[in-house]
């Protein structure tokens, strides 16, 4: 049913989405925590910046990344000066681009969840002698758990579905940047509708299963709203 190349694209996509989701959760938790509790005047600009990929066409993001990361771009020069290999057309590049692209899908659910937890449980824990780390890991995080699951599912699914950015900076390299959405596109362009259909169906089922799992994994009292 799947050709070896299709399987490679499938595996690559799952690997990309997993790496991106894990990294985004690690990065997103402190960021969402900061957005929830800071009174800094940078809060609103940062929140807007985080949300930007929601409204920005992926091609715009891809275009700027390609220019920034290229040998003439600011980041490209820095990376070259640091002796690292360039980011465009690499798996690492896709990871970084996907993290930018999927950022709001992870940070916003976390932010909402932390806000829903509110100050009160934290103050209580504090009065019982819990330190800041203790408060975060034993009080805030467990209470915000449904939000963490939502963030993980949305971040994962959104990365799997990414196309515009990959088209701009991926270079369609088998095993490196030829993800499932690119593979489907190639199949359609070449008139191989059967293979396109099989892969698309895969994505459809995975997406539906992810959303279903998300609602099932939520505790009942959250499931209602």
């Amino acid at each position: 049913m799947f050709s070896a190349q299709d399987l490679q694209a499938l595996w690559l996509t799952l690997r990309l989405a997993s790496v991106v989701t894990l990294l985004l959760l690690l990065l997103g938790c402190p960021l969402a925590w900061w957005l929830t509790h800071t009174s800094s005047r940078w809060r609103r600009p940062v929140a807007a910046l985080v949300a930007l990929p929601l409204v920005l066409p992926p091609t715009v993001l891809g275009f700027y990344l390609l220019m920034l990361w290229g040998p003439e771009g600011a980041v490209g020069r820095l990376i070259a000066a640091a002796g690292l290999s360039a980011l465009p057309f690499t798996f690492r590049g896709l990871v970084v681009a996907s993290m930018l692209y999927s950022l709001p899908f992870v940070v916003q659910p976390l932010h909402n969840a932390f806000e829903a937890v509110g100050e009160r449980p934290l103050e209580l824990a504090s009065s019982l002698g819990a330190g800041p780390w203790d408060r975060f890991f034993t009080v805030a995080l467990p209470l915000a758990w449904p939000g963490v699951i939502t963030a993980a599912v949305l971040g994962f699914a959104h990365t799997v579905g990414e196309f515009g950015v990959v088209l701009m900076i991926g270079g369609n390299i088998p095993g490196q940047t030829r993800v499932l959405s690119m593979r489907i596109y190639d199949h359609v362009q070449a008139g191989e509708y059967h293979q396109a259909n099989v892969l698309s169906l895969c994505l459809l089922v995975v997406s539906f299963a992810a959303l279903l799992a998300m609602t099932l994994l939520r505790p009942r009292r959250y499931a209602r709203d």
Partner: protein
Amino acid sequence: MKRFLISCLLACAALLQPWSKASAEDQHITIAAAADLHDAMDKLIASYRRNHPGATLEVVYGASGMLLNQIEQGAPFELFFSADSSYPQQLVAHGKAGGTPVPYAMGHLVMWSASIDMSQVKVADLSQQRFGRIAIANPQHAPYGKRAEQALHAAGVWDAVQARLVYGENIAQTAQFAQSGNATVGLIAESLAKASPVKGSYALVPATMHEPLKQSFVLTQRGAGNALAKDFASYVQSPPARAILAGYGFSLPGAGH
């Protein structure tokens, strides 16, 4: 509330109107053109319109294989300018053409680079690491990509360079990869090398290393009865149009080399 709903409906109705006033059917065509015709086709149309100011000709660029698919799926194109002959022939074979394919130009594949002087470089040299990333168009649906693959095989360096290849969606994106410097070398159309906004150098890939890029156009079923489409098709074969194409490095059918 009622008034709000009515104004919403009216606004929708207004927004659904096409942007420009629909001109007479015959005065407007849309052309599907291979991505190597970027610039050249724009020039052709501009020159054609000087004598036909009432005509509107729009172009959609893409990989020839992709355009073929779109036409077969009913995309509203009157003319199809492919970068080879096989895609127009497929359109004929599938009964979706409105005429027979006509060769209009012979394309050339070149090795282009912004950072390395390519003038003395041979295809076999590309196996050297100093050529870094090499961009080619996707061989699955872009004729120039297929020719690039053939040439790399013919030079015996396909296995050596394969890990360094990046694939453009069509030949124009491939050129962009090389022009932005993200790929060190691009195997691109000479027409795009000549029209490059970025300074670079290039060497011709010998035509013996790949199937010829005998570029043909064909009227689609939709364009078969369209006077403007037919007139533009004959214009493309006229001396002024051939001069424009020659300026972009295309060889011309019936002109020798």
